[in-house]
């Protein structure tokens, strides 16, 4: 299934009047493809990612996943779609503080009814989280936390993984390790990956890079 964004427009109100951040963005990410979304600070790349995941609504334009049109759904249906088809990794605060590592990894797959203990276990192993299953998020390092978030995003076998600066809080070495893990695992799952980053070095690790500038994707 392909994630497709067409004619996406979004305006923010600022102190100097309305600013049109997205001015008809067109973007498609195919299954198995990994795309890096780059751009200046405040260029609207995070907003675009949020709109792609139905976390935020666009003023105009359409988001489709396969034959589903996310933009036409109500809040509850959109939330259900997010549960079932998306895996999302943010820069921080991804985890549910009251659940331990194992439960966090399994959480979304259980929400979407696709819980697969073997998959979870293999993800934990592949992400190098062995032995940490009983720990709570606050007991983990930043890199470990992000790895749990990736595990959780993939455990539900999503069609699309959205990542917003997933390694933004990590040092360079850890970033590389975490990103490589994510890339490989997404590829293995055959999902699409759309990742916001401002680092060209990281962007280069993905299949292709699109650049957001002045509200449009510069090819």
């Amino acid at each position, binding site marked *: 299934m392909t994630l497709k964004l067409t004619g996406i427009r979004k305006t923010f109100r600022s102190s100097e009047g309305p600013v049109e951040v997205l001015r008809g963005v067109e973007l498609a990410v195919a299954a198995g493809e990994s795309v890096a979304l780059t751009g200046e600070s405040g260029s609207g790349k995070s907003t675009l990612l949020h709109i792609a995941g139905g976390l935020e609504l666009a003023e105009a334009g359409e988001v489709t996943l396969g034959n589903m049109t996310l933009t036409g759904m109500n809040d509850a249906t959109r939330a259900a779609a997010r549960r079932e088809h998306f895996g999302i990794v*943010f820069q921080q605060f991804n985890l549910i*503080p009251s659940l331990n590592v194992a439960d966090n990894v399994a959480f979304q797959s259980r929400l979407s009814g696709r819980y697969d203990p073997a998959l979870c276990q293999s993800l934990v192993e592949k992400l190098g989280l062995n032995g940490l299953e009983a720990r709570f998020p606050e007991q983990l390092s930043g890199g470990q936390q992000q790895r749990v978030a990736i595990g959780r995003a993939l455990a539900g076998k999503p069609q699309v993984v959205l990542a917003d600066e997933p390694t933004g809080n990590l040092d360079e070495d850890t970033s590389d390790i975490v990103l490589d893990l994510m890339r490989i695992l997404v590829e293995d799952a055959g999902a699409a990956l759309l990742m916001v980053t401002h680092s060209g070095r990281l962007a280069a690790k993905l299949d292709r890079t699109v650049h957001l500038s002045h509200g449009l994707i510069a090819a």
Partner: protein
Amino acid sequence: MSVFLTSLVALLSFWRRHPGQFLTLLGGLTLATALWSGVQAINAEARASYAEAASALGQDELDRLISPDGPFAEDIYIALRRAGWAVSPVLEGTITRDSGVIRVLGIDPITAPPAAQTIDLSATEDLRAFLSGRVYGAPELVATLSEGGFDAPLTASANLASNTLLMDIGLAQQVLDQRGLISHLLLWPSQHKGLPPIAEIAPMLDRVGPDTRSDVASLTNSFHLNLTAFGLLSFAVGLFIVHSAIGLAFEQRRTLFRTLRALGVSARVLVGLLVAETLLFALLAGVLGMIAGFFIAALLLPDVAATLQGLYGAAVDDTLTLRPSWWIGGLAIAILGAAAAAAQSLWRLWRLPILAPAQPRAWARASEAALRRQTALAFALIIAAVSVGFLGDGLLSGFAMLGFGLVGAALLLPVVLSALLRLGARFASGPVSEWFWADTRQQLPGLSLALMALLLALAANIGVSTMVGSFRLTFTGWLDQRLASEVYVTARSEAEAEALREWLEPRVDAILPIWNLEARLAGQPGEVYGVADHPTYRDNWPLLTAAPDVWDRVAAGTGVLINEQLSRREGLFPGDTIRLPRQWDAPIVGVYSDYGNPEPQAMVGLSAFQARYPETPRLRYALRIDPRLASGLMEELQTDFGLPADTMIDQASIKSISLQIFERTFTVTGALNVLTLSVAAIAILTSLLTLARMRLPQLAPLWALGLTRKRLAWFEVLRAALLGALTALAALPVGLLLAWALLAVINVDAFGWRLPMHVFPADWLVLGLLAILAALVAAAWPARWLSTRAPSDLLRIFANER
């Protein structure tokens, strides 16, 4: 200085941007101070009234001569005067009118020492009027009596305690029907030299020093301790609010603190600033709380006054006076309270490294270790409570036991709730419900203070309502036993009493004399009653313990009964003896319950009573008659025999008066109970509001993972209801233990009687629902706040720009 001021402005600017939090903090401290100072104002007013009563006749300054056998003949007074002793006679007693018990003080203004001259009789006309029958009373009492029921010219005087009538001793002897009798003599401070010793002239009299504490003051002590305990409880509950509000403000200003520190404000200055800020709050809230407290006190005082009057015959003005000591005390407690609530935050600030991460951690998250420490402390307190209960004696240790027990139970609450939630989690199916249980458990530390407050309020509520309910059941049953006769009538003189007996003889089934004598029993002012040998007593009298053939022995005059108060206070039981007037060491054969009477009492057979105390007026009678004929008889007594209506009362009226007094007794406790519960609800609200802000980062991932805001908000409400319900459940055993302690320990010490405990499960259900409702109401606002957060607010959580 400029560092100080600039920084202070920066700190205070926070409150301008968070007016709700400002109001919470101020409101909590105000409420706490208000409840505490309200109770204190009531206590102060009552104590002032006792002092006034005690000083009414210079009793607080003058030595007195009293007889252990009660009132004595005025010949003894004359003998002392004729021997040269400067003494002045006083006759003191009580009469009952519709308005309640009235204390009658008879004095001789001609010989009264200056210290005893309460009323200014310096104008000739005033003295002439007083000697010829003018009676002085407090304005309210005069107003009540003027409407009828007292046959003498009444003049209002603000110098008298509110239930006291002051009159000439001659008139008092008539009013009290104690002709030729005197209760005590006041000794002038200076006496002539060379007088024969008092012991030679009047060997039956004892000289006692000035009374700085009236009997009433010591009797009512327990009642005031009770009120104080409640005030303290409310105050503690109020402090929970303050603590959470201050804690929140502290967390929210961490960034600011860090910045200030980085800019060169020392930790010392910063802490100083926050101390200043706290002080500012305390003063502001203190003043507001005092004003609110004044109104609470003014609202409750009439009921308290009625209680004290009904229960102890203690007169308390029901208008409030502002006393400087009360103001100072109230402000001090506000400052102390604020300091206690802020101490933890200040301590943490003091130890804060300059560049500590400014991200708010989950606020007040307790570690496992802290929880273990708390559990240990809780158990230590509970053990202390149990030991005090076993080893201690007296009211103070009773309250200590309650205090330890309640705080211990409160501290244990988070542990218990945590265990219950863990249990709940076992039955959870599905990730959301698992998350719900786990998350609820993780919320506990932040909510536990508020829940502890709720626990205390609920437990107090259960305890007190169980106590009051048990008392009411017992009391009504007891009234039925005790007031078995249909009509009670009092003659105004011996001659009238004799005529009355003759007149009644053919008209009623039985005439039961109720003759009594005021006397000191075991050193306390009390009464001795003579009772007839009649089935009315044999069948009905509420005996708690009795020797065999108890009524035969009473009738024969070989045994007497004492009331429960006397029995408990002095440890006297059947088999012991009690010293009655005229050196009569009477064997005790039974103990009867005597609720509502603070004084020791003894009952002796009528013939023995007459033989030993022949001069006692024989004026009061209980009449047995077919209940249907009772009202007719009372009418005839007025129209045919010519007794005024206020000399008689029927069973139903006396019961309803007794029950009224009873109900008013607990109005105050009830009111404080409700207030405490509302304070607890507010504590939950503020805690939830506080947590709601911290909750966003915790809930945002769930939202991102596909749970709607609305659903998450409902979970929040459900969680509050669950915690409220569990707390109510935990409060039940605590409340019942409290009720037991009140009935079996506190009541016995405070009032002198022990009551059987009755339980009222329907009340618990109502209270449980009330607790859940309180939690729901408190959760509604933060939940709504949560459900209306814009997605961008939630998304911002995940971004770095914070």
